[in-house]
């Protein structure tokens, strides 16, 4: 019991140190950027008095360590400050941008895993066949095609030409204001409010960007799955299991696939984490008001309030997913318990 508490405390300490280090690094590196956040507020036509006033209001005339300490102190009370480049509270911005990305990333990873894992397994089982080659080519295309270009081509074909999906944005303009933002996840909020029109409209808008991101994830996941499976299928225990009379698919399902689960969880967690960081280019093409674009715009404007809050979230995502995968290892592999 005591050992467990000690372990949890150690883990929490390590998480806090990591996050603090991440924040400090981002803060001090951000202050070295040649971008002046004051100009984002006052515009380039303002005089020096206006500049000095805002410079002071932002606390930029204080020593860097003091600025950092004040930021961290405010952050610990849940105050991320104002986003200079949007004029809103950072927390309010993120409460809109992050759910938009969670929704997109989650659907994308479902598509990526749902297609990538079976394709990878089958490609390994049918190694060297036409199916294997086709899977690898599809994967290679998905892995190497710019998502920006894919997005644009997808919009031209499926939105503009065929009219199968909704256009850029999360909803048709006629649905703006038709839904109460309970969670910020439009699909969930539409179900919550019992509004099928909004739900299906949101589906029609998310399906294309999610598929394009999912395709890129699928390419990565299927390649890794194939590689893990090939390694397992070459093991002697597989041959032994077959000699014992187990069917081919039973061996694959019960032994080979089960043994790659630990590695696969790591791959999927990483792919999901990268999606949650936001896909800036996809978000740009699809006018998706997500986290990636928010972070990039904040960086370009030198808006450290917004950037630090985003970095903190990214840090928490990676650490959270790491902890989750650690737990999953224990479930999936008894040797790690």
């Amino acid at each position, binding site marked *: 019991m005591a050992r467990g508490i000690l372990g949890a405390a150690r883990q929490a300490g390590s998480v806090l140190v990591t996050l603090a280090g991440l924040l400090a690094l981002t803060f001090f590196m951000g202050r070295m950027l*040649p*971008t*002046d956040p004051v*100009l*984002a*507020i*006052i*515009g*380039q*036509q*303002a*005089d*020096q*008095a*206006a*500049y000095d*006033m805002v410079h*002071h*209001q932002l606390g930029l005339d204080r020593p860097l360590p003091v600025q950092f300490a004040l930021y961290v102190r405010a952050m610990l009370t849940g105050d991320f400050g104002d*986003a200079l*480049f*949007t*004029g*809103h509270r950072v927390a309010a*911005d993120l409460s*809109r*941008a992050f759910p938009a990305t969670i929704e997109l990333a989650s659907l994308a990873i479902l598509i990526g895993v749902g297609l990538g894992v079976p394709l990878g397994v089958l490609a390994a089982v049918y190694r060297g066949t036409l199916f294997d080659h086709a899977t690898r080519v599809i994967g290679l295309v998905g892995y190497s095609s710019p998502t920006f270009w894919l997005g*644009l081509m997808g*919009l*031209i074909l499926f*939105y*503009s030409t065929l*009219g199968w999906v*909704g*256009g*850029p*944005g999360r909803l*048709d*303009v*006629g*649905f*703006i*204001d038709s839904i109460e933002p309970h969670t910020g996840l439009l699909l969930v909020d539409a179900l919550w409010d*019992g509004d*099928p*029109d909004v*739900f*299906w*409209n949101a*589906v*029609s808008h998310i399906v294309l960007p999610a598929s394009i991101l999912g395709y890129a994830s699928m390419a990565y996941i299927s390649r890794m799955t194939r590689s893990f499976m090939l390694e397992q299928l070459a093991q002697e225990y597989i041959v032994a299991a077959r000699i014992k009379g187990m069917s081919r698919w039973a061996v694959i399902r019960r032994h080979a696939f089960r043994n790659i689960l630990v590695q696969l969880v790591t791959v999927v967690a990483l792919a999901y984490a990268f999606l949650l960081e936001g896909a800036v280019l996809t978000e*740009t*093409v699809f*006018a998706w*008001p997500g986290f990636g*674009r*928010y972070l990039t*715009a904040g960086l*370009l404007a*030198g808006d450290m309030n917004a950037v630090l809050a985003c970095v903190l979230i990214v840090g928490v995502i990676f650490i959270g997913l790491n902890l989750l995968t650690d737990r999953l290892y224990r479930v999936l592999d008894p040797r790690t318990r």
Partner: protein
Amino acid sequence: MSPRLPLAILLLLLQAPASRAATPRDALVMAWNLDALITLDPAQIGEVNGNDIILGNVCTPLVNYDPQDISRIVPAAAESWSTSADGLTLTFKLRGDLKFPDGRAATAGDAAWSMQRAVLLGYGNSANLTQWGFTKDRIAEQIRATDDRTVVVTMDKPYPASLILSAAFASNVAVILDREAATKGAKVVDGKSDLGNAAFKTGPVCVGPYRVTRWDANDVVVLERNDGFFGQKPNMRRIIIRHVPESSAERLLLEKGDIDVARLLTTDDLKALEANKDVRIEQTVVQGMSYIAINTVDPILSNAKVREAFRYLIDYDGLARSILPYQGTPRASLIPEGAFGALDRAAGQPFKLDLDRAKQLLTEAGYPNGFTKKLILSANSISPNIAQHVASNAAKVGVTLELEQMADANLFTRGRNREFELQLVAWYAGYPDADANTFRHAVNPDKRPEAKLTMYPVWRTGWQDLSINEQAAAARMEPDPAKRAAMYREIQEFMMHNGPFVYIYQNIRPIAVRSAVKGFVISPFFVDYGSASK
């Protein structure tokens, strides 16, 4: 969880999907890149998006530019004005039917307070008043309400009425904000009230045809019609501006009819839309100039012959055919066409590509073999194409221009800090009068670095000519319009050959509109959302 819930969700999902892709009949839907939008407070706005949304659409100024002729001033919230015999007092008579969105009457007290507020807050826009002698210390006496409908403005000099009306009282600082709402929503910063800035940043309460009902950063801005507005009732009940930062996506939305207006399209997309009968393209020449700023603190670039040589490296005619369609019109004068006192089109662009002349000027300046300099520029829009054009011609006369692209925020920072040799950048005049650019691009009160006159692009270049300062000051105070215009013509001729700026083109604002949208008034200084109908 109730066992009925999954069933309810399933039934819900099985219902037929609906689409509301076409834009509503009573709403004007625009797509634009709203990345630069950081505030809706009229006293703070310093960029194009905010100005477009607020000026004239959410906040009506005391007077306005005539959309047909922007050098003419017409009544708006003020129904009339008069100037005292000594020219030092300007009196505005406000309309009697001014109302805030909630129906409460707006008074001259609100109008005077709004202008005082702009000066007291001290953001960039305050220069619209402070450059005419209004100061934080005296503003309460300088602009005051004498009754519910009268605003009296006391000036330190008898500025020509047409000039000061255009420069100060048709701008974002001369609007009527709700003092009561600002007081209620005020925050105290450093022991001082922010005069409602934090509240008005996301939703100003103003006298105007529309009010802001929603602004989700980087997503959407929604305006709703104010039915109590004094002027002509806007045709559209709602204005929806969606943030679509990619030109191709905007074009697809427009072609499909999911938006009515596209505000950010590249030349390629505009050309592609030309053949579309459902769309028309409106091009407005605005009061912005794109130019190369030359830092004359640099010993080589301080030579006037070197600067003159750069003017002959621009193929104005070639640019007009290749890069500038939908983006700009060639112009070499510091005063944009359309402004009072501007040179006409021919006189305002006398240069042409002449490499021999450029080479000769460089030789006379002592640099027959050229030199190497760095040109910094924005990575956006057509800046990279323009820079490559100049660099390619410069190379032909032995001048190597190293191009460095960067984000706009970096570009502006480098400019204000004088950290450049050559900078490709744009500047928008605050009002359609030669005075506007003359007092930023020609007049440099103090060229010393420690003067930090960063709002003067000419200070950033380190260039100064005291006789130009005097000429500009005299032109500003000249009451005779014909004489004043002649004085500005002289200044323009001089600056075109001696100044630190190589002007390349006057900016065009292209707007693609669905044919179903009628009567949309688009002027160089404001876009009247309420004029559009379907």
